[in-house]
């Protein structure tokens, strides 16, 4: 690299909680910071201090730094400075903000994944409050929502976001890019407690194995304790045909998602609200996932203003066997959660099953019956799961059994 001027980040009308950094390397005169910020009165000094700290970390001693800040949080500012520097010098160093203490939690393979909220990986204003909307998972997206020329800076931003933003218990997910670029993404995010990786445009088991082996190398190297799960997204006809092999490709694959925009493109048909064109594909993917013992999850619904259509869509999706759906706007989350949640009938039936089981157990009976029907252990397990969920969703008192 022999450039001496580079820019990273965003500014301009409509940009919030972000900043644009331009660094021009100089031969002398030390660090000169030219700061424009709408929070200058309150944070001017701390922005300058942070800027100097990052430059010193990367051993940059003479430079003119222009900062155009629209209220960016510190982890955003440092990510932008780092990105600009990495456009100027070759370095593997990472300027890591502190890992917030609440961000170290692990998740389990069978947790509910009703709603997963996509957040563009280069838009800080959409990340900061993403965890507030009760989505089961937050996806920091490095793939389709990031412009090709912004991939490198987004990777740094997402890494910092994983360290700093509290997602309040939501599963911490990242959608990586395909191929080589995706492996680069992986190496950046894995050390920062990512719970699940979404793999876009999967159409064979080999892709999973490649990612899986990279993950196990990094996990061993860094002695990471928390598991890292995989959610392949099937987005073409070949992927649908191979969905069973994809679902079984690795132990860490916990869910299989379908991406209908790309799939319908691959089929050469328009995507409709009724979804007749993808009926087979969805059914096939659901069977594959269920056969492999993992969760089939549905595509996103792209009209963010039509909540009624979304609600209908969710109910069909649930009826087919899907166990979750992607969201592209926080307002979709409650509709999706509500739709996949057990309704009153299901909850009541589950209560009866569990009560009958408890009754039988107390009496030492080996066989559980509800009315004239025998109840198998898996039915009891499912009833318990539904009850657990109803409690979690506030639809049932935790103390219901009394």
């Amino acid at each position, binding site marked *: 690299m022999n450039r001496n001027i580079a820019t990273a980040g965003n500014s301009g009308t409509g940009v919030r*909680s972000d900043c644009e950094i331009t660094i021009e390397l100089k031969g002398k005169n030390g660090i000169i910071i030219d700061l424009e910020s709408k*929070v200058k009165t*309150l944070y001017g000094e*701390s922005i300058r201090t942070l800027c100097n700290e990052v430059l010193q970390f990367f051993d940059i001693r003479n430079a003119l730094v222009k900062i155009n800040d629209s209220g960016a949080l*510190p982890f955003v500012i440092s990510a932008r400075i780092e990105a600009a520097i990495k456009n100027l010098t070759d370095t593997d160093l990472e300027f890591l903000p502190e890992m*917030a203490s609440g961000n170290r939690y692990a998740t389990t393979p069978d947790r509910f994944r009703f709603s997963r909220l996509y957040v563009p990986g280069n838009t800080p204003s959409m990340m900061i409050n993403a965890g*507030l909307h009760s989505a089961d998972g937050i996806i920091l997206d490095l793939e389709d929502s990031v412009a090709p020329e912004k991939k490198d800076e987004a990777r740094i931003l997402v890494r910092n976001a994983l360290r700093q933003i509290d997602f309040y218990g939501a599963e911490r997910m990242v959608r990586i890019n395909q191929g080589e670029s995706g492996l680069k993404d992986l190496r950046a995010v894995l050390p920062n407690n990512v719970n699940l990786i979404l793999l876009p445009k999967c159409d064979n088991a080999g892709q999973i194995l490649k990612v899986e082996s990279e993950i196990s190398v990094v996990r061993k190297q860094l002695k990471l304790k928390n598991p890292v799960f995989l959610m392949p997204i099937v987005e073409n006809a070949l992927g649908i045909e191979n969905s069973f092999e994809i679902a079984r490709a690795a132990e860490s694959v916990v869910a299989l998602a379908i991406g209908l925009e790309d799939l319908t493109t691959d089929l050469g048909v328009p995507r409709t609200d009724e979804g007749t064109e993808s009926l087979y594909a969805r059914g096939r993917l659901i069977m594959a996932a269920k056969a492999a013992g993992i969760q089939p999850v549905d595509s996103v619904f792209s009209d963010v203003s039509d909540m009624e259509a979304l609600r209908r869509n969710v109910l069909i999706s649930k009826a087919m066997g899907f166990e979750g759906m992607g969201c592209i706007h926080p*307002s979709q989350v409650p509709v999706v959660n509500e739709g996949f949640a057990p309704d009153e009938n299901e909850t009541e039936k589950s209560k009866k099953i569990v009560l009958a089981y408890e009754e039988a157990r107390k009496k030492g009976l080996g066989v559980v019956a509800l009315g004239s029907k025998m109840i198998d252990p898996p039915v009891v397990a499912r009833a318990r799961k539904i009850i657990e969920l109803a409690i979690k969703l506030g639809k049932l008192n935790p103390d219901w059994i009394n």
Partner: protein
Amino acid sequence: MAVKSVINAAGRSIPLTINGEPVIPFKGAGKHHPTGRKYSPPIPACHDYPADGNKVVKSLEEALRKCGLSDGMTISTHHHLRDGDLISNRVFELASSMRVKDLVWFPSASFPCNDPVIKYLEDGTINRIEGSMNGPLGRFVSEGRMKGTAVLRSHGGRVQAIQDGEVKIDIAVIVAPSADPFGNARGTGGPSACGVIGYAKADSMYASKVIVVTDNLVDLPCYPMEIEGNYVDYVVVVDKIGIPEKIVSGTTQITRSPDRLLIAKLTASFLEKSGILKDGVTIQAGAGGTSLAIAVFIHQIMKRKGWKSKFGFGGSTGYMVKMLEEGQMDYILDAQAFDLDAVRSVGTNPNHIPYPVFNAYNYHSKGNLTSMMDIMILGATEVDLNFNGNVVTHSDGCLLHGIGGWQNCLHARNVILPLPLFRDRIPVIVDEVTTLCGPGELIDVIITERGMAINPLRKDLIKSLKGSGMPLRTIKELKDEAERICGKPQKPQFEERVVAAVKWVDGTVIDVVRKIKT
């Protein structure tokens, strides 16, 4: 020249005189007891006015001349036409061309459309503004460029200052969407209808001279008259008093921000679970996007439960009108109509009643409507660890908003402030408010997207929420969370010079705003 100062009951350093007049430092909420008699304007005689009742003169300039416009006078105007007002700037344009100096402008509020008065502050036509300032006007004052010291009052405090003679209005210019030649006037009808014009009521009764300006002259009587012609000296008819689309928003809109919606949902849920929301409840909420969303959620709950609100106090909007029309609210008492639905309703629905701040908020009134309200939803730029609130300056120290009815509304039974924990990077909950506008003892609940804090004084509310699952935090925890995310902010730097005084509802000085260091 150093002015002596004292520390008031809120712990703020206050100069003993402002604009050369002695002031009373804040004594505590409900502690000041005025004595004496109300101010009285000069006595007129009816035979000095046209026997045929026709007070129309040919121009605003002629009316101002006839009123004896001269140096140092206090001129009042009102914000009924909001950002579409074409007349208040015109008053000072005329005054400037008449070479009048050192006027005091006493608006009920100012809007961005009033930015051109900066010119008349610079050329000496206006000495100072006693009223709200925002945007460029606020910055102008904060930078110490206004000659006199601004005085900020609540809507009720403005009436108090008029009634006890703290402010003596020489000429009130009242812009009216409809008026008759005798001066009776109202806020409905005509091309510039704004709904109600109650903010001018006190001015009409106490000013030495009163001019009514309209673009819709109707035959006498202009009924129902909000302003009575008996108080009016001159009527001026112009082509246009305002720009209709800037007078009222066509429709006010609930917030579309998912984060604000979350705050609104949490607020409605709190109101339901605490038992504050009940059959017969009285409600006031503003026209901001979050308040409107709260109103919608409250409406849904009341519908579901079959409850009715006895009355809502407006700032009315289409959302409140919907509650009235669908039967979840018996009456709207209205001080200002914010959108076209509200304007239509106040003009046609007998249960939608104009109710001026003269009656609702006035400190010298025999009772206070706001203390009868169960639910009061308000905003703030900052709240501190003692629940003190700021509405006039931003954290950077610049004047940015008026007080409006905010201070008056603090006297409601349950004062609830739904606020984002931070705006961009700026924490809303701070150690100490930059400018104190309302004492914390009157602010009950802060609701943010990251949890809510109840004033420890409200033991009853805290008890009512036991086991409710509401995300209760202490205010300190909320502040710490904001600082964890945003970093601890520096304090803005001020110079000694006082650029604005903030009055409490009783006319005492609760805080001052100083010139920002530039």
